[in-house]
């Protein structure tokens, strides 16, 4: 692993890009997915339309999705960001809606009857109970986005994918291995961390 020792700066930069792309996309995606998930959970008909549209986006292969966005946003980080945000919606919205729907109607009835406003009932009663399912969506989306971000190198968005594709083109197996292992470790790390968070939330609600 001479490459690892001789290029720590480059690797750190690419890792940083990879993390930034994934986390920025995740944050934006969550901000959009929460209201959408709420809409899907509350209104059956609107929900069908929203989920149908998101499913179309989700079905498009990641590389094709990038390619489709190039005419609109050009090459680079922003394009990759848009693609990642769009891709994560399906997973996040579905889980937000499923989480909210899983809340027993009796607790919501009790909350309203005791005098919690709709917003208070949502924040204090419904969301905490829906949290494990929502966090499950965040975990799955994060892992999927880490994978998708590694393809970002194809449209000049940087990330650890750069090492993989550069290595493949220049017959440099060390770069390929470092890039691939980096992506894999990132995904496994995120999965482990978020699963622990999710389990902690679930223990509070269901035991």
């Amino acid at each position: 692993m001479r490459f690892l020792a001789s290029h720590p700066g480059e690797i750190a930069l690419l890792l940083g890009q990879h993390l930034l792309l994934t986390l920025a996309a995740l944050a934006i995606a969550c901000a959009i997915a929460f209201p959408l998930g709420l809409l899907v959970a509350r209104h059956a008909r609107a929900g069908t339309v929203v989920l149908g549209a998101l499913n179309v986006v989700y079905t498009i292969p990641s590389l094709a999705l990038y390619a489709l966005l190039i005419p609109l946003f050009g090459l680079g980080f922003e394009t990759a960001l848009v693609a990642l945000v769009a891709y994560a919606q399906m997973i996040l919205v579905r889980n937000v809606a499923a989480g909210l729907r899983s809340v027993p109607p009796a607790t919501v009835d009790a909350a309203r009857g005791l005098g919690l406003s709709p917003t208070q009932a949502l924040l204090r009663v419904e969301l905490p109970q829906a949290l494990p399912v929502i966090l499950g969506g965040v975990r799955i989306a994060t892992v999927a986005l880490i994978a998708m971000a590694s393809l970002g190198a194809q449209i000049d968005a940087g990330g650890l994918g750069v090492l993989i594709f550069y290595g493949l083109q220049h017959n440099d197996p060390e770069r390929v291995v470092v890039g691939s292992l980096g992506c894999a470790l990132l995904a496994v790390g995120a999965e482990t961390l978020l699963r622990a968070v999710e389990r902690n939330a679930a223990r509070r609600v269901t035991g």
Partner: protein
Amino acid sequence: MRYEGGDRAAVDGVTLEVPAGALAVLLGPSGSGKSTLLRTVNRLVPMSAGAVFLGGRSVLDEDVVQVRRRIGYVIQAVGLFPHLTVAQNIAIVPQLLGWERARIDARTDELLGLVRLEPARYRNRLPRQLSGGEAQRVGVARALAAQPPLLLMDEPFGAVDPIVRQELGEELLRIHRALGTTILFVTHDVDEALRLADRIVVLRDGKVEQDDTPLRTLAHPATRYVEDLLGGRDVIRRLGLLRARDAMRTAPPERPSAETRIDGRETLRDALNALLVGSDTLAVYDGDAELGTLTFEDIRRAISAAAA
């Protein structure tokens, strides 16, 4: 008032006045509109027409959330918030009302004591660590937290076994006597209604069939429907509503009196039981003091007096 939820009104033309401090039971089979009627009071069900007045003020004139905070609400499924401890569940309304921390803590312990759950043992438990009966006690404590003048209870003891159900009923009567809270209680269980109510409102298809005391509802059913529902011809049932001390003869005629004793607060149903298995005369006591005697003849007399 009137509420139209489907093709026929669930509640139609109901006029009801419940005096402050009463424990009124809305009794009827499922589909009779009793839950709907109850839920119009805290506006969980919007009325199509009509009004509900609470202490002289229409609940429609006030912000719906504020109205609900002044009305306790207990439902069959309990609906405790699973992610909050017992104390946090009870504290929810006081918290919304902006009470200080110390006041909330004191009130929580006071309420746990009221529903006979030892605060130190139960305060920090989660709802899933409670039995069905314990959960409903917490449900009642939560509903009473902000000292509401009115408590709405929608089949609150419907999901617990008969023994616990009876026990919770007795606890409710004790709490009702202690606090004087007006209670509107929905049930389809006739015996539960007779045990708890000082007024029974019998509902059928969204209309009031009879609104009367338990004894009068039993002895003088207004309609055939009420008679069938309550089994008014069942004299034993009526005995359950009469107290031994109200039917006894004072000034015991002979001494020493009968060997079989009965507490004056026991019902004539209990007294009849005691007479059937024991002596022909019962001694009625209040604590250690003998109040009088009771025989089969006294019970028969009490029954015909009550029916008149």
